């Protein structure tokens, strides 16, 4: 784990760059994280991100893609469009969460 400076403040991240403390996240930071991986955030991205963060806060772990779709109500196809190729990982990175651990 290391400390990085983003948005003018210290942010704790793991060796890959995923935030280790979700409470250090805000939507301005999300824009910077998204830009890092070539994604321009839209309102729809933010809806998914807010779901993922709320679900993580409640369940204690990052939702998988299937959970984001089944519980959050976001169609799988759309998630692949919003967060291309590796939707679960990209979503968790931008949402300031760890990668999901579940298999499905």
């Amino acid at each position, binding site marked *: 784990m290391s400390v990085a400076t983003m948005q003018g403040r210290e942010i704790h991240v793991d060796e890959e760059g*995923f935030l280790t403390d979700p409470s250090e996240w805000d939507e301005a930071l999300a824009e910077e994280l998204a830009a890092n991986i070539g994604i321009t955030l839209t309102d729809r991205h933010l809806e998914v991100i807010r779901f993922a963060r709320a679900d993580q806060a409640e369940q204690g772990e990052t939702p998988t893609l299937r959970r984001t779709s089944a519980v959050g109500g976001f169609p799988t196809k759309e998630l692949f469009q919003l967060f291309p190729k590796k939707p679960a990982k990209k979503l968790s990175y931008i949402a300031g969460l760890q990668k999901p651990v579940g298999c*499905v």
Partner: protein
Amino acid sequence: MMTTATSTPEAAPIPSFDDDEEGGRKLVLICSKGSLDMAYPGLVLANAALGEGIEVHIFFTFWGFEIINTKTMGDLKFVALGNPATHMPNAVMGLPGMTAMSTKMMKKQIADLDIPEVPEFLDLIHESGGHLWACRMSADMMKLTEDDLYEGVEGIISASDFMELSEGAQTIFI
């Protein structure tokens, strides 16, 4: 301790999602078994690979047709008889009703993990861009046509077609 005062702010690492490198990766799964416990490995791996941006093809052959036959796909069974990993005596597991019971137990364990049933799992894979194929010889043997199969199945293909399809792919036989 004032260690942070002297350290210089670091730029955050950015995860390498390797989008370009994964561009050429292709996974082919051959599903040849028709029991509940043997359906899931292929479906789970296919789904995981799709979530990593990998091109995925599943080829259903022989008993694997149970997974895509609309009449059977929602009703796969787990047979504990003759399976030493269940640690149950065969004399007991061979009794009437035991397959129904062990199937019910396994389905509950799967549902408890929030893992979808087979038809819904196929939907998930199909929506995620996975390709589903059925084996020509098996279809002919079982007298099945595309009308009998899950709608996401793209076609009934021959062994030679499969060779073209799997060129350059990592192939796993289940």
